């Protein structure tokens, strides 16, 4: 609906204008395909303990002396193929990122629309809540939530539900990202005359919100969601790096960086560098795409007022 009215040709035209965005889109496609189909595409299954061989441990990338072409990006201290580990790790990073954006979006849009349309004390209450939330920077809140989960759940349950704890932590700490702009956009939209015209038809608040206002704030939501995905992946990586995110049994990219870190001093840099680079490329291309979306949608949004 959104894209259709923005006219596909316009977006497509502006996309082709920007070489960097095309490159970002390409990189993102490669990464996402690699992650989604990792069980079939990856050279080995890093979780298959039986296939690990300590003789293969700590091998450098294939193009360096001592490297093996079987292990393109080298191996870790357990003899795991880094490339496969990264592909599987990225899968987990992406799942966490997407789920937490979805959660944050659901909370943020609901509260943002409610606050923006209702105004008055409802608005004041939700926004004070958001202020308090802002006093806890997202990474801190995420740390806290996983800290609480860690101390209340038994370690077995925690291991099993680590992914959802992380999603919850990131989602709950980034909803303000959506709520504030959605509220602002909603407050702008609700004073516009097309909303007044809808009220003259006697439509209810919910109908007006969903039918008229929501489609008109989706443009900015799309941009935030894209940029928010980058933020979520970064937070997840940071949490895992600090040892409170994904456990080593379900390693995300951040976990890989964290576990490879101790080997830098020994000169075995590839265990850290490659997963870290993957995070960087992933987030960079997501950000590039978000920036482009914002620029591409904005003048249009302004024109259409």
């Amino acid at each position, binding site marked *: 609906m959104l894209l259709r009215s923005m006219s596909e040709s316009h977006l497509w035209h502006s996309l082709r204008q920007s070489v960097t965005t095309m490159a970002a889109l390409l990189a993102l496609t490669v990464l996402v395909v690699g992650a989604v189909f990792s069980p079939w595409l990856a050279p080995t299954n890093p979780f298959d303990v039986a296939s690990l061989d300590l003789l293969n441990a700590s091998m450098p990338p294939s193009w360096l002396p001592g490297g093996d072409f079987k292990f393109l990006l080298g191996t870790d201290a357990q003899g795991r193929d880094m490339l496969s580990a990264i592909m599987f790790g990225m899968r987990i990073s992406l799942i966490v990122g997407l789920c937490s954006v979805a959660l944050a979006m659901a909370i943020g849009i609901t509260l943002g629309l409610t606050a923006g349309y209702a105004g008055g004390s409802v608005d004041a209450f939700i926004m004070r809540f958001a202020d308090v939330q802002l006093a806890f920077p997202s990474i801190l809140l995420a740390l806290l939530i996983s800290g609480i989960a860690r101390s209340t759940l038994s370690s077995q349950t925690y291991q099993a539900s680590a992914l959802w704890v992380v999603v919850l932590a990131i989602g709950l700490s980034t909803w303000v990202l959506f709520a504030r702009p959605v509220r602002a956009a909603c407050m702008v939209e609700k004073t*516009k005359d*097309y909303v*007044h015209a*809808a009220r*003259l*038809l006697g439509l209810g608040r919910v109908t007006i919100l969903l039918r008229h206002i929501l*489609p008109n704030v989706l443009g900015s939501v799309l941009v935030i969601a894209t940029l928010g995905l980058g933020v979520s992946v970064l937070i997840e990586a940071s949490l895992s790096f600090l040892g409170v995110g994904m456990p080593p049994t379900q390693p995300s990219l951040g976990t890989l960086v964290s576990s490879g870190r101790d080997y830098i001093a020994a000169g075995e840099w590839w265990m850290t560098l490659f997963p870290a680079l993957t995070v960087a490329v992933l987030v960079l291309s997501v950000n590039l795409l978000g920036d482009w979306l914002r620029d591409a949608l904005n003048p249009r949004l302004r*024109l*259409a*007022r």
Partner: protein
Amino acid sequence: MTLDPAQPSLIAVKGLSKQFDLSPPWWARLLTGAQRRVLKAVDDVTFDIPRGKTLGLVGESGCGKSTVARCVTNLMVPTSGRVDFNFGGAVEPSTALSPEGRRKVQMIFQDPYSSLNPRWPISKTIAEPLKVFGLKTSRAEIRDEVRLLLETVGLHADDAHKYPHQFSGGQRQRICIARALACRSEFLVLDEPTSALDVSVQAQILNVMLELQARLHLTFLFISHDLSVIFQMSDYVGVMYLGRLVEIGPTAEVFRRPRHPYTQLLLQTVPRTNLVGQIRAPLSGEVPSPIKPPGGCSFHPRCPHVMDVCRSVAPKQTQSGAELVACHLAAG
């Protein structure tokens, strides 16, 4: 008084007031000794419009004419006073309109760029009232009705699938009229419907409205700051200043012999194309802030005929010929 005793009134507004409380919160008033600040946007406004006629409301920015429009259409709840509609059956107060009554009261807005949902093709916008009020149910009927409505307001029926940004300002205003017509409305509030448009397009839109009014026997409340548009469009005219109706009466009468000094000032200062090289302006004076209007008659600081009584007593509306005027001069 009713404007035309021979004609039944479609809408009667009695003692309408709307206040906005701009005061700081109670604790701040307590701590800093700040005063309550109440903006009387509309203050005790009474008028009625005979069926099939147009009442023009004119005044400068901040005089409360748009607030009247919003109260009349129920987009705002008045602080006091009442608005009654009579569509031929029983008298219905605006706060308790039946869906049927609500359908008959529609509005055309000033800004044609914000009055259409930018994400909707215009066919969907025009069809919405048809569906909401159950006027047409089958898909084919709705499509035909939308095409008919578009042609009624002078647009191509084939443009129904287009989006608002593909239309010019004048065309969008026509689409808004089509949406109001889709409701089969009987009473239209026109809130500065042409002030965002160019003169040549304004003429087109005003013509469309005149034709529709004659054909469908519509009743208009026409709000504008443009005296000449009001002069041309309305049968009756009301002049507002700082929330009050200072003069109301038949258009020809008010424009030929304005009785309130403010109406006189407005008519005198409006630039006219037939008076080349003439600027007729008082040396100073501006509309004061509606938050702190002057006491007594709120126009007294700018009035050339100011008397002592004007500074202390707010004038009541009095009959003067076919008009009602709120001025101590007219009261004799």
